[in-house]
């Protein structure tokens, strides 16, 4: 009985996942962003050539930065509308009037966003590697690990955005708050430094911010790999931190979704 229920639950997650991924990939914005990011990575060739002896570094950094930015824009937007748009268009009626547990539906949606982020990074990453090969450069050190860490950041921000979409008043508000968190999350070491230097209310405020804002610098290997500085990333800490954020935000989102009327 429990086995059958679990199997049914997994089948629902898989159906929602497949359907959602198809929906995201057929979106016009997806095509535009993919073309734009490929074009931008290609354009980085020119910047690289201008950098003369630093061509490899510029080409790699520029491409990775663009890739991350494009993936971030699409993932955050898609996460912001993943559930809210279903409510707005009333397509959620046709799903929730069926024997579909809300948390299974939510899980299917989240997994599809994670896979979408991986697809974007793999696609753009392959293109960048082809360009590097074309320019006669070798495989950049730790490239696969850099992509994996960018994916982890995207998974965290995607989970947070879905949670925010349940409590914010509009898609724009959700996207703005997520972008702010994304930006502030890259200043976590600076915040930590300020905590040590300040006292009183400022310190309490900064400590609170440090806890509430995800530390994306944990995953920013791409900033250091070529300089040798902090090139080592604590894998265990990075994975644990990812799971903690994803599970916590999923828990809160599922709780709100369960109470929400359609």
């Amino acid at each position, binding site marked *: 009985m429990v086995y059958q229920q679990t199997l049914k639950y997994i089948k629902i997650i898989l159906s929602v996942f497949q359907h959602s991924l198809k929906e995201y990939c*057929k979106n016009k914005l997806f095509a535009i962003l993919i073309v734009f990011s490929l074009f931008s990575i290609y354009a980085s060739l020119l910047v690289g050539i201008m950098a003369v002896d630093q061509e490899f570094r510029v080409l790699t950094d520029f491409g990775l930065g663009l890739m991350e930015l494009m993936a971030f824009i699409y993932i955050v937007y898609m996460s912001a509308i993943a559930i809210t748009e279903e409510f707005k268009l009333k397509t959620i009626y046709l799903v929730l009037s*069926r*024997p579909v547990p809300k948390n299974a539906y939510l899980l299917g949606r989240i997994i599809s966003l994670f896979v979408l982020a991986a697809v974007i990074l793999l696609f753009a990453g392959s293109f960048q590697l082809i360009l590097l090969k074309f320019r006669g450069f070798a495989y950049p050190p730790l490239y696969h690990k850099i992509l994996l860490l960018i994916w982890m950041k995207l998974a965290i921000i995607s989970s947070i955005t879905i949670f925010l979409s349940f409590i914010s008043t509009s898609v724009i508000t959700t996207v703005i708050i997520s972008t702010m968190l994304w930006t502030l999350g890259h200043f976590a070491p600076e915040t930590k430094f300020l905590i040590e230097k300040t006292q009183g209310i400022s310190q309490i405020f900064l400590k609170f911010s440090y806890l509430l804002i995800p530390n994306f610098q944990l995953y920013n290997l791409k900033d250091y790999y070529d300089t040798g500085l902090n090139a080592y990333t604590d894998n265990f800490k990075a994975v644990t931190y990812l799971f903690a954020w994803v599970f916590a935000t999923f828990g809160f989102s599922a709780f709100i979704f369960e109470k929400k009327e359609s």
Partner: protein
Amino acid sequence: MKNEIIARFSNVSKIYKIKRLYSARKSVALKNFSFDIKRGEIIGLLGLNGAGKTTIMKLLAGLIFPDFGEILIGGIKPILSEAKQKIGFLPELPYFYPHMTCLEILTYYAKLSGLKGFKEEVNKIIEKVGLTEHVSKKISEYSKGMMQRLGLAQAILHEPELLILDEPVSGLDPLAIHEVRNLIAGINKDGTTVFLSSHSISELEKICHRVIILSRGEIVKTVLSDAWKIAGGLEEIFIDSIKGNNDENRLITVH
């Protein structure tokens, strides 16, 4: 099983809270609403805009929850999966993903309904609602009538015991109305109980065995088909019932 009750509303009230900056306004959508749906019948819900028709449909589909009272489908609360297995729901003006085909959409809903061997079922339903020719077309190319037929297809896909249709002929041309009406009658003939809401008196007259007249969240009259046949139509009965119930105030403001 002619008089077997398939769904029951017992003293159901639903209040919507409309949030304002510093306060909330409460709008009573349903007041002590009680009625039964019997197996095998086609029962209609007739009322003006804002009478509470869609609220009743959504409550029955388990999409919203009652504030007071109880709703049971085959003895089970509509929010539970076992109850949802028994119903098929078509919302008013259903929306489908425009870049997908009818086959893709029905396959998705069949999987969500937990249908085994869904490919056969999907093809059977597509044929039943007359969409075989348009099966590979994208939804963006569909007319309103075709969308409504697709809506019906997704609702009957898992052979529900109770079919809930919210304004199934809203916005359709006369030919499409005729097709949808025939489809509903056919589905009922196959043994499915149909519960539908409409603004159109003539539509309900043509298809229903029983009509509930609703005004401001309350039942004002239940009319059997024999009664409107004797009276020469449902329109006079409806107007008299609504006029008699016009003075009540249904908005309570809470600060």
